[in-house]
């Protein structure tokens, strides 16, 4: 930490010299924190199994903290293998007794209810999301929560239209889905997993991430209040062991996992020799390619959004910036200038651009990789932000002069750290962009439509953003190539993950 503070401190001085525009104190906003007095967080949460809130058989609870204040927000139950077994049994019984017998049109209505309730509770959900996960309120308010509601709303409509989705082929649900989700978009990932599973007629056991369980538990409350048949959705909280119990349970028909490539491979191996279906949404190291003919100011906005959105805790983050050599200096200059204006701090403040790093563990990982970048000789720039005393923080940072073999150019950092590299020809850009084991996403910035289409077909990635970045929609399939996983979420194509299609 001291090292990064020093670095940031010295850059504070540089700022006056280097910034093209000196705003003086014009960017010092008065605090505008979101009120939290109306938010209901229970002191202690049980597990949501079979429609009831139950205490864990382990008898153990763990605290979930706010990464921006390090204060304990609530205690959450730690589900052990027995608890997971209860949840899977409940899901199986609910599948056989209720969910598979329900008219598809009625199934749809239950899912619509969930969507509506998320919209009604959106303010509360957004605040809790920012408290528990550290992301800026403007992101949880404008992206996470509305998209979560949209996912339920979109998939609800599919429930009675599945025969149209795969014309000429018969479909049927898989049964019980075991789902394990990460901490970067806690409620949104729960929606991505639960909504299509339910719409396709499956029942669910979901394990939220241990650092961000609260909004998933609030979603359980919403599901309870929407009066879904008991056991259709079960939420078991816990860490890696709980997740392993979900994936390895013999009566689970499908495993859906979003998280690191390392854990994804472990799950894939664990499922070998079983008949369980699997979809994986894993890591990324996306190339964001900027051509000299791009609208550069717009591109800089896209670069900032691509890597600093959600503190870079985004699997599809544009973490490798490939700039055409002739505009490298201009782009880097503009990027530096733009980064002067980024505000890091209280996630609940409506002016905050960059929130807290999700956990101490993640902060350490980011620091380790940044140190590796420095050791390997890349030149570091960090935005001149003031780091709050409490909590986990990392200033928006980029490296220039890195080679393709550097760790910061190859490994997923999952933090607000960008690696800038250059290219001369479109072929070189394609070559460099594809030179990774990952293949989740990519960005292309150019004024030439033909160039976008050419690159879009050559880049080995599941989502390509042309002159934009980090856009998501429930109607739009999302998922990776290569070691970024397999299967899609969203759109008609995403339904296949939860159906047996003949």
């Amino acid at each position, binding site marked *: 930490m001291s090292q990064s503070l020093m670095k940031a401190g010295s850059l504070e001085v540089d700022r006056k010299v280097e910034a093209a525009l000196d705003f003086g104190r014009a960017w010092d906003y008065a605090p505008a924190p979101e009120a939290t007095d109306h938010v209901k967080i229970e002191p202690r949460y049980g597990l949501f199994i079979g429609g009831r809130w139950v205490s864990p058989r382990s008898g153990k609870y763990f605290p979930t903290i706010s990464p921006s204040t390090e204060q304990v927000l609530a205690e959450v139950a730690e589900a052990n293998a027995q608890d997971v077994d209860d949840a899977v049994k409940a899901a199986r019984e609910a599948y056989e007794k209720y969910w598979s017998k329900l008219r598809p049109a009625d199934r749809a209505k239950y899912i619509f209810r969930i969507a509506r309730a998320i919209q009604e509770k959106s303010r509360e959900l957004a605040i809790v999301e920012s408290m528990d996960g550290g992301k800026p309120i403007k992101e949880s308010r404008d992206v996470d929560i509305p998209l979560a509601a*949209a996912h339920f709303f979109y998939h609800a409509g599919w429930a009675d239209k599945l025969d149209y989705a795969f*014309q*000429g*082929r018969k479909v049927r649900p898989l049964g019980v889905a075991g789902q394990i989700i990460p901490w970067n978009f806690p409620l949104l990932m729960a929606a991505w997993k639960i909504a299509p599973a339910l719409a396709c007629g499956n029942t669910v056991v979901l394990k939220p991430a241990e650092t961000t369980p609260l909004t998933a538990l609030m979603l359980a409350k919403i599901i309870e209040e929407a009066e879904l048949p008991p056991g259709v959705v079960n939420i078991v909280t816990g860490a890696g062991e709980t997740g392993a119990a979900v994936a390895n349970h013999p009566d689970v028909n499908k495993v859906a996992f979003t998280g690191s*490539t390392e854990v*994804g*491979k*472990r799950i*894939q*191996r664990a*499922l*070998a*020799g079983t008949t369980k279906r699997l979809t*994986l949404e*894993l890591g990324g190291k996306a190339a964001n390619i900027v051509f000299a003919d791009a609208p550069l100011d717009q591109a800089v906005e896209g670069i900032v959004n691509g890597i600093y959105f959600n503190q870079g805790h985004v699997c599809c983050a544009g973490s490798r910036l490939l700039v055409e050599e002739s505009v490298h200096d201009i782009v880097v200059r503009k990027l530096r200038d733009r980064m002067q204006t980024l505000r890091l701090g209280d996630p609940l403040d409506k002016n905050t651009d960059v929130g807290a790093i999700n956990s101490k563990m993640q902060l350490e990982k980011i620091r380790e990789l940044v140190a590796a970048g420095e050791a390997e000789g890349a030149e570091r720039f960090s935005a001149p932000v003031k780091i709050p005393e409490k909590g986990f923080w990392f200033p928006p940072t980029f490296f220039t002069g890195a080679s393709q073999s550097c760790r910061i150019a190859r490994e997923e950092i999952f933090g607000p750290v960008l690696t800038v590299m250059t290219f001369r020809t479109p072929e070189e850009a394609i070559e460099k962009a594809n030179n990774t*084991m990952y293949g989740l996403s990519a960005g292309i910035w150019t004024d030439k439509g033909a160039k*976008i289409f050419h690159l*879009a*077909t050559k880049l080995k*990635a*599941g*989502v*390509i*953003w*042309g*002159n*934009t970045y980090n*856009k998501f*929609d429930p*109607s*739009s*399939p*999302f*998922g990776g*190539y*290569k*070691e*970024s*996983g*397999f299967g*899609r979420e969203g*759109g*008609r*194509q995403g339904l296949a993950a939860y159906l047996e*299609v*003949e």
Partner: protein
Amino acid sequence: MAEKKVRTETATADALPRSAETALLKPWDTQKPRVSVAKAYKMFVNGAFVRSESGRYFQVKGQKEKDDAVVVDVDPDPETVNIPRGSRKDVRDAVLAAKNALGGWQKRTAFNRSQILYRLAEVMESRKAELVQSLVRSGVPDVAAVREVEASIDRAVFYAGFADKYFSLLASQNPVAGPHFTFSIPEPMGVIGVVAPERPSLLGLVSTVLPVVTGGNTCVALASTTDPRTAILWSECIATSDMPGGVVNVLTGFPKELCPPLAKHREVIGIDAWLVDADLRKAIETDGADNVKRVKTHVPMDIEAWLDERKGQGLGWIERFLETKTVWHPVGV
């Protein structure tokens, strides 16, 4: 060296004690009208027919016409034929060929791929008698052999017609809530490893390889060990069908030996394996996780299912080795 050793052992094993009653020479048919030219069977890699780099071989016995058969035996091969026993290095060479063929195969228009697959059906039809004969020789009854070959040809026609249609069935324009033009298209995954079922040795291979290449992938297929000869014969059909070299590569050998290097190879992105051996299926799935391969393993279907037009072919067969790529662009002035 290995070859010599095996021969010596066999000779010793078959050795008979000599007695006064034994003729010095084995019986010999002097009525043979012509000495036939026997074919050296080779694997099909990068559009060429090659022996195993290892120099190893295994043997398959053919069912020759029975003594009382009236039909003239048109099979030029001796009863025992040598088949290359592929090695780990052969797998690597084939994967490299398949990888290098990817770009060219993907670049062809769907219409062109369609025509090449149709050309394959034409060549298979013209060599129908030969394919039937090869199956019969491997032990398939005459009627069943004819049925299998005809179904295989029809399957090639089926996929030929699908090459320029699956795209519009699987692609979509997505009505996103915002000023963006967003569409999703199917794309080939890359190099796919195919482990064909032991039986049906021809229809099984045709039914697994063709959907993979119809989708724009290239493949390395491991042929049936029971009847590798028919697979090689089919490779000759491919070789004369305008299919670019390296798009389909056919290896012969033992699954236990060749599956692990195929499953572990990092340039192979998907595997379609039809194996009875549950342990081997599991091993492929485990090894495949090293690079998050899309591994599909199956317990082989019975012959009726392979012949069935609902069960043995379809859009789903193409779809399982396609990726979905989603492209976004803002709309506005």
